[in-house]
């Protein structure tokens, strides 16, 4: 996390972050768009994710399959992800053949075709993706909990969207969504790797500089009213195993409470890496919930996580119920541990431990250039790059008193949804 990064905004609004790293002959680029399920409404859920799929269907200049071939030919990787607040397209290639990613990303920012026949084929692919998710009890439970946790905010829908919406969305809906959100003023281009900044910037200007600015689209959304009372829901499905998900309304990433919640998460369910690209982490066997519930043989596993988001989202705890216990017993045991956090301040040494863990997780993600490029753009999607640079500093500002205060604000029953997944009786 050093200040060797160059930040430039082109006249058309494209934000560019460049970081030279000369440890391997590789360059990784990420084009981030501020559009995700946050920008959707009922009837059109899943549209951002589907647009992401269509972005691989080609343009006049680069027909479908052309880039798959060209990038694979040089041993590169490329793919995309859609999330709550953002959609990102990344590619990591050998440095000497890198220019094709600039050329293609600039091209598909404006020239994707959305051919009707391909839209229909991709509809069935997206439905298949969703059906694969539906095979997992964790997806079914999470979708129900997410839906109950918000009454109006689009965060109430899974990124992949509702099946009935995927069946109805039209080619024109997709194209309009694409035109609305895919333009330089709504994008960040982040690159790390084996290049020279000045000449790379010239190339970026030559590919992206002439693309029209586009309308500013990503304004504030009305926030959901607070949950007035604890919500309970049940989902049943196939299998012999029960699961519990407890989701608390959580602060947005830009709220200072986010960092305090990060320390709380580390304490309760173990540290989690915010990097979404598998940079490695540590286990959670010494977390309070693991110790009390898994070692106490009330659940057989537990994990939790906080997501860095633009608007307040959720802090979720997910547990697999021990076969000799019930979801209610799991909930009671979790509540005892929450009560411990609310009753007595944690120690400074527990905070110091969370900071050391966070530093180690960042170090693992710096091993690889793809991950370093990820960090350059990611935090712009919900705050600013400084959020990432100051992350450890913000964690070090957390005190036992602030943890107690934050826990008292957020970890209360009337701020949560409790979901049970139980096996369906034959």
């Amino acid at each position: 996390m050093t200040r060797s990064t160059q930040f430039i905004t082109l006249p058309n609004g494209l934000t560019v972050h460049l970081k030279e790293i000369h440890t391997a002959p590789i360059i990784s680029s990420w084009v981030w768009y501020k559009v995700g399920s946050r920008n959707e409404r009922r009837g059109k859920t899943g549209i951002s994710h589907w647009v992401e799929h269509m972005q691989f269907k080609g343009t006049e200049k680069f027909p479908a399959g052309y880039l798959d071939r060209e990038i694979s030919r040089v041993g590169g990787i490329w793919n995309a992800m859609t999330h709550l607040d953002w959609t990102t397209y990344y590619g990591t290639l050998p440095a000497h053949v890198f220019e094709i990613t600039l050329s293609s990303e600039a091209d598909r920012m404006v020239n994707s075709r959305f051919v009707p026949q391909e839209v229909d084929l991709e509809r069935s692919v997206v439905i298949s993706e969703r059906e694969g998710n539906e095979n997992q009890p964790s997806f079914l439970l999470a979708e129900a909990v997410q839906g109950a946790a918000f009454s109006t905010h689009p965060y109430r829908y899974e990124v992949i969207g509702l099946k009935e919406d995927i069946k109805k969305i039209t080619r024109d809906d997709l194209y309009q969504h694409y035109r609305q959100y895919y333009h330089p003023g709504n994008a960040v281009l982040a690159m790390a790797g084996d290049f020279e900044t000045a000449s790379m910037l010239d190339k970026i200007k030559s590919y992206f500089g002439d693309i029209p600015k586009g309308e500013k689209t990503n304004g504030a959304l009305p926030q959901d009213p607070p949950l007035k009372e604890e919500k309970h829901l049940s989902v049943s499905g196939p299998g012999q195993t029960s699961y519990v998900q407890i989701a608390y309304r959580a602060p947005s990433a830009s709220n200072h409470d986010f960092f305090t919640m990060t320390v709380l998460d580390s304490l309760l369910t173990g540290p989690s890496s915010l990097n979404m690209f598998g940079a490695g982490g540590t286990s959670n066997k010494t977390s309070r919930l693991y110790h009390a519930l898994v070692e106490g043989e009330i659940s057989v596993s537990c994990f939790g996580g906080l997501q860095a988001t633009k608007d307040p989202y959720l802090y979720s705890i997910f547990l697999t119920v021990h076969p000799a216990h019930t979801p209610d017993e799991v909930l009671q045991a979790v509540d005892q541990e929450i009560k411990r956090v609310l009753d007595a301040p944690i120690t400074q040494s527990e905070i110091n431990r969370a900071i050391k863990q966070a530093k180690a997780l960042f170090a693992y993600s710096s091993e690889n250039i793809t991950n370093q490029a990820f960090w350059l753009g990611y935090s712009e999607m919900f705050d600013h790059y400084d959020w990432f640079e100051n992350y450890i500093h913000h964690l070090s500002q957390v005190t036992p008193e602030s943890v107690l205060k934050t826990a008292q604000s957020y970890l209360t029953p009337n701020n949560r949804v409790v979901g049970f997944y139980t096996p369906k009786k034959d």
Partner: protein
Amino acid sequence: MKNPIYKAHRNALPNPENITRKVLPNGITFLTRSNFNSPTVSIKGYLHSGSIFDTDEKLGLSYLTANGLMTGTNHHDFQALYHEIESVGARLSFSAGTLTSSFNAHCLSEDLRLILGLASECICAPIFPEKEFNRQKTQMLTALAIRAQDTAAMSALLFDQIVYTGHPYERPEEGFPETIQAIQREDLMSFYQQTFGPKGMVVVIVGAVEPEEALSAVEDAFSDWRNPVQEKIPEIPLAHPLQSPKMKTLNIPGKTQADIVMGSLAPERLSPDYFALRLGNNILGEFGMMGRLGQHVREEAGLAYYAYSSLSVSKGPGAWEMIAGVNPRNIDQTIALMTKVIKNFTTAPVTKEELSDTKSYFLGRMPLLLESNSGVAISLMNMEHFNLGMNYFLEYPQKIQAITAQDILQSSRKYLDPDRLATAIAGP
């Protein structure tokens, strides 16, 4: 050598000049390579203990033993052990396969000796406490109940039962509920005594540490370890290809999607057919958007989110699998389409363009595979495990370039016969 990466960055590839290899007096082979780009190290390795030693009645014993290594030692109980590891943001884990039990760790380089010391305790002096054993057994039974509901895992399990019928590889390392129930703590103790030992063990360290320091740390951690009764890994028998097509299906009610696995046996890693098959598999179901399978099943027919192929090779017989996840009403159509793709693949040579593309892919991807400490450590471990030689990466481009379209066709035909495919389906 068409790819300039190999010239300009020759020294970046693992080779005899930048790998240190040493065999300790107790039989442990140690390999290391320094990389000071980030302040971290990756530690990986394996021992010659695995499910091949399990009886049918207690299948899963090897798996539970590997998992039990971190439940307590002479010096640390479960919580104390993990407290040391997690407090420094490190990770240490063990797992069991058929022929080996593996360990995997990463940490900041300043914590290398701490983590190696703890790994050594777990490997050389585990005590398998009764309480933790019972908990672990329940966790395992729950994992198996979850597996029974997983269409991908169950179709893979069925596929192995077809292609490896009568062979040790037909058995899942995790066992079955009834075999896990039959295992007692004493079984872990005796399994550990019989199969864990330094002979044949490999330790690889890659990252921000000088070779001399890494060697010294490994010697301090493991050089005193002996096991005079360590058993040798059994000979792996041959497996016999199917003489006719065979299908197994498993109904998992209530699911939305079915998983299909089709395929055949494959040769072992050191087979002369290896590189031809590796390139062929890439064309069949990996390259770009999942190769020919992805093109036909996903892109053109819209039948599946994933349709790809996978070539698994190790010591003994391997497997060549073609996999797709589809809506249950599309199973027959997908099988027919995948069979057609396989038939075409084994009838005519791959095109010039396909051959050129796949060669370029295998040569071009090396910098990405080898940029992380973990990636290099896996490569060094494979070089040792399969006795590929320290010059493996230097000779690799020539081996790839030498493969012809006829090599791919002939090798593929040897193993993949569209009229004698194994097919496994798990779903609603």
